[in-house]
């Protein structure tokens, strides 16, 4: 992953060459035809989402719950994209409700910014961040089933998501994770939680102690994709040990200029505007778009499933 180019379109398709540099694994090249939906209007050089009816679509947001204007703007753009690229679920990287979490805060910092999506039946699956009350696990719209950490099978494609509670990675949770990963029969294992194992941000950066205990499990059990927040920027990390990591911590909060530049970790970074992501799993390929406050794609590409 990480180095790709879009060749000139042929009959409405772009040929995307994705060169996979999967850590110690041998590099491999994947060539796929990607139909570009007429409505997508993506700039040249960007990888369009295939937007197939039978594939799994989902969105990713993180560090969103401050109730400020940009959060609402992101919500508006998510709805706009939903109308072209319907996604049944949204993964939340934590810091879902900043500060006070009285009932009116749940409205102002979650329900209202995403009202359009909620009205369409989109389900949000939360993980908890360090600004979140533990009792959010019982909130009807976070679909956590009263659990601090949980896994669920995606409604389409062969995908299982795992939501972790990274502020409190106790031995019980680690044991649970290993057992869940070991028992998961799905081809795609996608993990998300708040604290990034890899990040070039100055404020928090890579959580090395957490990495020590989690990454060996991710490697052993074939995890393909890890999504995090906490640092208020967007960062696509260069693949580490065959795993693709993203920091998506700017869907509401933003810490301008926080990313170290250059950083040996960064494949692409953006710390100047709020970002959310759209993803599509189609067989063994996942296509991603990172979208800014203008509703424009700022980063995109494809990931091949780890086998």
């Amino acid at each position: 992953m990480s180095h790709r180019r879009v060749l000139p379109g042929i009959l409405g398709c772009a040929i995307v060459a994705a060169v996979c540099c999967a850590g110690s694994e041998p590099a491999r090249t994947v060539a796929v035809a990607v139909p570009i939906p007429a409505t997508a209007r993506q700039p040249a050089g960007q990888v369009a989402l295939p937007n197939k009816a039978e594939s799994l679509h989902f969105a990713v947001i993180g560090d969103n719950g401050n109730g400020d204007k940009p959060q609402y703007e992101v919500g508006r753009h998510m709805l706009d994209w939903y109308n072209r690229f319907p996604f049944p679920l949204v993964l939340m990287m934590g810091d879902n409700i900043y500060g006070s979490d009285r009932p009116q805060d749940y409205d102002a910092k979650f329900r209202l910014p995403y009202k359009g999506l909620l009205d369409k039946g989109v389900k949000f699956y939360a993980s908890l961040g360090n600004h979140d009350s533990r009792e959010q696990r019982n909130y009807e719209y976070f679909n956590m089933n009263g659990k601090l950490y949980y896994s669920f099978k995606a409604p389409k494609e062969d995908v299982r998501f795992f939501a972790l509670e990274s502020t409190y990675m106790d031995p019980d949770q680690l044991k649970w994770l290993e057992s869940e990963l070991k028992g998961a029969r799905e081809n795609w294992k996608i993990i998300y939680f708040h604290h990034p194992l890899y990040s070039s941000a100055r404020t928090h950066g890579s959580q090395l102690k957490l990495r020590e205990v989690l990454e060996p499990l991710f490697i052993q059990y074939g995890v393909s994709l890890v999504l995090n927040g906490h640092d208020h920027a967007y960062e696509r990390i260069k693949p580490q040990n065959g795993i693709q990591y993203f920091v998506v911590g700017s869907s509401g909060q933003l810490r301008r200029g926080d990313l170290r530049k250059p950083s040996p970790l960064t494949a692409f970074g953006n710390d100047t505007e709020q970002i959310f992501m759209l993803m599509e799993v189609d067989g063994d390929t996942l296509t991603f778009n990172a979208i800014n406050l203008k509703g424009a794609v700022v980063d995109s590409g494809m990931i091949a499933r780890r086998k």
Partner: protein
Amino acid sequence: MVLLAGLLMGQTPASSKAAPNPTPKAAPKQSTQVNANAAVISDFVKRVNEYVAVHKKLEDTLPKLSKDSTPKEIDTHERALLKLMQEARKGAKQGDVLTLRMQRFIRNLLRPIFTGKSGEQIKAEILDKEYKGNAPLAVNARYPDEVPISTVPPQVLQSLPKLTEDIEYRFIQNSLILFDPHAHMIVDFMERAFN
């Protein structure tokens, strides 16, 4: 009641374990130390169990939260439990659960972690750069909304006596707190858990 399984029963603080090649003569002293530590942990377990028993009893008097609760239900439950716990523990003071002996034990337990080669990393992961305030700590108080909930690195959690989900270890700055996540309440705390 199974509350604190997997305790460090009989485990000595790492500083004691690090004593170089104890001679046979030193063995009785070490054995005494082990017994003393076991007694401290056992006493801590007893105190935590007592707290959790009260917590469970009072929480059972409240309507149960479903997995599909509204914010109002969550808030009402949390604050009602907080109030009940505050009334039930009216005379509670710092050190009731984390006794001075337990505080000393914890400091000894954590010292090698915080002074080891990864110590600064671990501290950095606990001390949230976003929070610069200095919230006053008080037993039975609601955990302050403006203070992010600290990360407790796995290496720290692996060292401390295990708790159930009714009570958690957290940090505010370098103070270790016992936190009741259901009532969103500070149960007890110790200052200077690390320097």
